[in-house]
């Protein structure tokens, strides 16, 4: 509680210091001097120095304080009598903290009520210490930076440096998060590979994720060959979906850029982009409830006996529709980026519009289109909701689109839903699958970006 008061105090202090600095800078100007930087920069500079070190201190203090409070509670007479077992002790401490914070009336353990006042006291004590230090920091920062205000002081370039630092920090957060995601996947995957050999995972063709509880139970042996899953993923996301999305996306891009009157384009293009905004769960319903039964009936009608109501075709078709806006907007951009001079050159030779598109525009735009398709594939194979709802669970290696196949994301969902042991090969397999999928989409994205960049260079 006191820490948040300290936080507000620091911010107010920074604001006040800024105002004060501004007045001083304006005052300097009133003396007839020409300032190196505008008064606003001086104000910003002082406010930053007042706020940032103090805020940083508070950010560090908060976790430190938690540890200190716990220590002091445990060293109190009541605290020393607590059970040594971690889990029991932590439960009591948590209850005590919640009582102290007023979140609950009493705990299940009698000790927690006794501990609560001690907890409360420790909290206020340490918060007061931390808060005071922060406020001192803020005052010190404001005071020291205020002394630098002068006619020649380059507040503007200092503020610029601060701003750059802020922007660097912002972009680092995104990168570090990605790194963190990779690492967390990696460590769980390593645990998985201690139980299942990596070669079996990468090259095995049987997927039957189960671990035995007793040695003599039925189905005691599991198999963790991921190939059927990646085949299913590629079959739905990279083959069926692309057979739908590439021609439709490309042709709609050609129509929109080359044939459509501007007014129609102004309507059609946003409508196409709405497709990209439909939540994937809605596509999932559509695939499972509408498309899948139609395809099963069609399959039976043309004599496919194994036609399933969770066919690869249903999931793939709907995913293809979902991907159309990605393909078409990338293709649109790259066709529009082909210089008008190319079109004119071809038309002036007596080529018709479609000859020009086929022989000049599309070849010139091809790298951009390929890049767009790769990005679309990487999105399709990482897509989860549609396949969870519409694709099956059986890990079949089939090329019959009426049969059921399963995908990596579907299996991950299966492995992680419900109550699971967190150290069994079955659960850990989900992380290994996730890691492999991540690596594959990462590679696809890298290739796509390279292709697109190379193509951009060609016209600059």
């Amino acid at each position, binding site marked *: 509680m006191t820490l948040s008061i300290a936080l507000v105090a620091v911010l107010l202090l920074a604001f006040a210091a800024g105002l004060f600095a501004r007045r001083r800078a304006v005052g300097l100007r009133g003396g007839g001097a020409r300032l190196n930087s505008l008064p606003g920069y001086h104000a910003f500079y002082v406010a930053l120095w007042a706020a940032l070190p103090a805020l940083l201190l508070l950010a560090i203090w908060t976790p430190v304080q938690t540890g200190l409070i716990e220590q002091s509670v445990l060293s109190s007479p009541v605290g020393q009598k607590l059970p040594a077992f971690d889990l029991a002790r932590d439960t009591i401490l948590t209850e005590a903290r919640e009582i102290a914070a007023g979140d609950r009336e009493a705990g299940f353990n009698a000790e927690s009520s006794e501990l609560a006042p001690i907890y409360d006291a420790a909290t206020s004590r340490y918060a007061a210490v931390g808060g005071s230090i922060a406020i001192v920091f803020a005052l010190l920062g404001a005071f020291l930076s205020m002394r630098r205000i002068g006619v020649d002081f380059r507040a503007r370039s200092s503020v610029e440096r601060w701003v750059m630092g802020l922007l660097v920090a912002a972009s680092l957060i995104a990168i570090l998060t990605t790194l963190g995601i990779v690492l967390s996947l990696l460590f769980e995957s390593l645990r998985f590979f201690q139980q299942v050999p990596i070669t079996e995972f990468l090259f095995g063709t049987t997927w039957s994720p189960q671990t035995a509880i007793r040695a003599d139970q039925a189905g005691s042996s599991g198999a963790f060959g991921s190939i059927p899953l990646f085949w299913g993923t590629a079959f739905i996301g990279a083959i069926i979906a692309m057979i739908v999305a590439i021609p439709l996306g490309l042709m709609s891009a050609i129509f929109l850029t080359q044939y459509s009157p501007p007014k129609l384009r102004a309507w059609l293009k946003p409508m196409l982009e709405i497709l990209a905004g439909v939540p994937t769960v809605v596509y999932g319903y559509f695939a499972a409830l509408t498309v899948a039964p139609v395809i099963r009936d069609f399959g039976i009608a043309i004599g496919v006996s194994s036609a399933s109501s969770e066919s690869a075709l249903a999931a793939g078709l709907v995913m293809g529709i979902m991907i159309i806006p990605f393909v078409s907007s990338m293709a649109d951009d790259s066709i529009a980026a082909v210089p008008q001079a*190319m079109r004119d050159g071809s038309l*002036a030779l007596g080529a018709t519009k479609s000859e020009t598109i086929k022989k000049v525009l599309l070849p010139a735009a091809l790298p951009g289109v390929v890049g767009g398709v790769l990005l679309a594939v990487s999105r399709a194979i990482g897509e989860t909701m549609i396949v969870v709802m519409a694709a099956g669970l059986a890990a079949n290696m089939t090329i019959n689109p009426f049969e059921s196949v399963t995908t990596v994301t579907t299996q991950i969902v299966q492995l992680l839903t419900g109550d699971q042991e967190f150290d069994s090969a079955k659960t850990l397999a989900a992380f290994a699958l996730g890691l492999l999928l991540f690596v594959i989409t990462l590679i696809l994205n890298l290739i796509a970006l390279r292709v697109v960049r190379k193509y951009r260079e060609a016209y600059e």
Partner: protein
Amino acid sequence: MIETIVPNPTESDEPSVVDGPAKMSARKVGVFYGEKQALKDVSVDIHDDKVTAFIGPSGCGKSTFLRCLNRMNDTIAGARVVGDIELDGDDIYASRMDVVQLRARVGMVFQKPNPFPKSIYENVAYGPRIHGLAEKKDDLDGIVEKSLKRAGLWEEVKDRLQESGTALSGGQQQRLCIARAIAVDPEVILMDEPCSALDPIATAKIEELIHELRGRYAIAIVTHNMQQAARVSQRTAFFHLGEMVEYGRTKDIFTNPVQQRTQDYITGRYG
């Protein structure tokens, strides 16, 4: 800056007889972009064995007019052409005129070299392929070689026909574009400031090429460079503010113009 411009010496070799029937003739041509009239009342003849130059300050409508001659203005939304333009006596804006056939007969070279991002060979072979001019690979090879020779590029590129056309120098690219236009065997070649993006040496080569092509093709060239018009052309039309001010023999336009505005322009008083 006032310079003396010496008209093309070959002009004096010509007997000063009246011109024969024109290859292309434009009568009272006007162009509208939406409501705005960009060009009015242009009447010009383009002859088989002569180079016709269109000169004038920027924005005077000379390029707009050139683009009317093979209906490239069709590609601009809202552009409308009035008046008559005839090719061998046929109205090129008549509904029975196929614009694809027209452009095969009236080729065009643009201001900035615009080779396709394909090989040198494919650039030249593009037109003949589209129009089905060659049955066999040998025929196509022959057309490509002949066109590149006529464009004066053969010696420089004969050993690297499979390299990209965009890798050539600016001047070579422009000659490649000329070869590409020649390859469909046109009757008229329109050139829209073909040297404005080139250095003086490349420019000299293109001008030399225009001399050589004269006689085989009717040529119309837009240029903002009056010396160039004087060097390469036998007929000159002077455009100003969307009007054609004067049309006549290049020699007359540069030495003895009828209109005061022409006089002012060629002596460098404006433009």
